[in-house]
């Protein structure tokens, strides 16, 4: 089954708080898991990505946690800022191809 389920659909966080977005997948042949940030009218921008042999990756305020046995991965945004307000997509790459399956997106709003 080539699906990536993303939750929540929308999220409101206070400035300085932690934003957490979760994704789950079923296809064990996925071998690369990126997160993208998209502002209205723009293309998705690559934020951070992880491979399944790593359980956590941190870049600045963004952290991916990866649980291979549970087939779940999540994005944590620390010290959330109003400028982080955007739609976030998780994705998974099909092994041996460049086909990416995207989640349905999470609309994040950070209140000032």
């Amino acid at each position: 089954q080539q699906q990536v389920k993303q939750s929540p659909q929308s999220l409101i966080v206070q400035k300085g708080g932690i934003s957490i977005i979760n994704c789950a997948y079923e296809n064990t042949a996925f071998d690369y898991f990126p997160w993208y940030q998209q502002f209205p009218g723009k293309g998705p921008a690559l934020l951070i990505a992880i491979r399944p042999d790593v359980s956590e990756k941190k870049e600045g305020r963004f952290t991916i946690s990866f649980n291979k046995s549970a087939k779940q991965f999540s994005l944590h945004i620390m010290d959330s800022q109003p400028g982080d307000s955007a739609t976030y997509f998780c994705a998974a790459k099909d092994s041996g191809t460049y086909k990416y399956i995207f989640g349905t997106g999470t609309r994040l709003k950070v209140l000032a």
Partner: protein
Amino acid sequence: DAGVTQSPTHLIKTRGQHVTLRCSPISGHKSVSWYQQVLGQGPQFIFQYYEKEERGRGNFPDRFSARQFPNYSSELNVNALLLGDSALYLCASSLGAGSYEQYFGPGTRLTVT
């Protein structure tokens, strides 16, 4: 360095018409992928080209076709447009050859009336 560029930015077509969308990848990138993003949804994979050959195809009808040129730029063609083809069409480029990072362009907004 210039990122992925796409043209045109916006396009309005009538049902039954044909459309050609263009994409130039990041300099040095040899792989181009096309995605369709309907409002409120995640991008859906259409095609991937690497070294001018089709390397992947999503679940889209034969009305959709693409090609990659010797300079690695790419065109997406859609024939016999339907209202449901209205979407943001995104091009993404990557180095290819084992490098998985994929960078998206700003997209072409297609409206079919």
